[in-house]
């Protein structure tokens, strides 16, 4: 080995040692930043298949949940049994000309309306009801 080669090797070793030392003597803040970067990068690579409720962003689901709730309430209000138009049902039954069906609907209405329970317990009411139905039969026949 020549003197030149020896000097070159000494220089390279000194450079390497000096650079290694510069890594060892890195300030605490930089070392922490590097560790944090590494952990962040590696965590992003973890598979997300398992349910991790801690990682879920529940706030992101608030608008969707509110919309679903509004839709459900709208459906319940629009299609609730109280809102079904009685006259429409009656007219439909009259137009069909099916008297039995109309009578059944009328009876059902009487039974489902709680305020009419007192009248249904009165025998005169049934007499009056028969008269009404009989007169309607005559009208329909005409």
């Amino acid at each position, binding site marked *: 080995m020549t003197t030149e080669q020896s000097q070159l090797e000494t*220089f390279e070793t000194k450079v*390497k040692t000096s650079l290694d*030392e510069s*890594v060892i003597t890195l300030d605490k803040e*930089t070392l922490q*930043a590097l560790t944090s970067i590494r952990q962040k990068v590696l965590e992003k*690579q973890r598979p997300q298949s398992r349910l991790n409720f801690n990682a879920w962003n529940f706030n992101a689901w608030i608008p969707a949940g509110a919309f679903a709730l509004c839709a459900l309430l709208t459906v319940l209000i629009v299609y609730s049994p109280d809102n079904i138009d009685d006259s429409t049902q009656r007219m439909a039954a009259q137009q069909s000309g099916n008297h039995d069906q109309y009578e059944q609907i009328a009876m059902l209405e009487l039974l489902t309306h709680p305020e009419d329970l007192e009248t249904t317990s009165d025998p005169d009411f049934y007499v009056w009801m028969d008269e009404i139905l009989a007169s309607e039969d005559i009208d329909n026949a005409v």
Partner: protein
Amino acid sequence: MPMERDFDKQYLSMNHFLADIEGRAFRMAQIATGNRDDALEIVQDTMMKLVQKYSHHQTSEWKALFYSILNSRILDWHRRQSVRNRFRSWLNWSDDEDEAVEDALAQHPIDTSHEPDIKLQDSQFMTGLNTALSALPLRQQQVFLLRVWEGLDINETALIMQCSASSVKTHYARALEKLRGKLEDYQ
């Protein structure tokens, strides 16, 4: 379950690899950019790309891939800087930072009036080395650090730098000559 076990094994290997290399990568980026925050950002981008794109490669290939990405990111940073500097010159902004870098070596003269102190000499050598390395052209700087610090051979360095083996030899010889000339007094 076996998939999870494989992932955990790979996770640990990658963690170990990055923990070992991150300090040197940071210093290389810092020497190349002269800025701590930019260096951290470059290291982060490099780690991210390695983990996302190449973690399934064999462990033995990671080092070359890592430095290839790192050098590419440093090159990108320099390109962006040159565009920024062009804008600065159009706007006639004074560029005191460059002057400061050039003068840094001159600001650390060798103190020969005291008895030789090994620690002080080492410190002076380190400061001089930092400045001299920063002053090297980027390709020479990268080749020198990969060859001397990482101990990569000519072919590995050529692969990372995406150039021929003869170019690596030329860059290395020129870098060595400049550094020895500048650090002669510190030895």
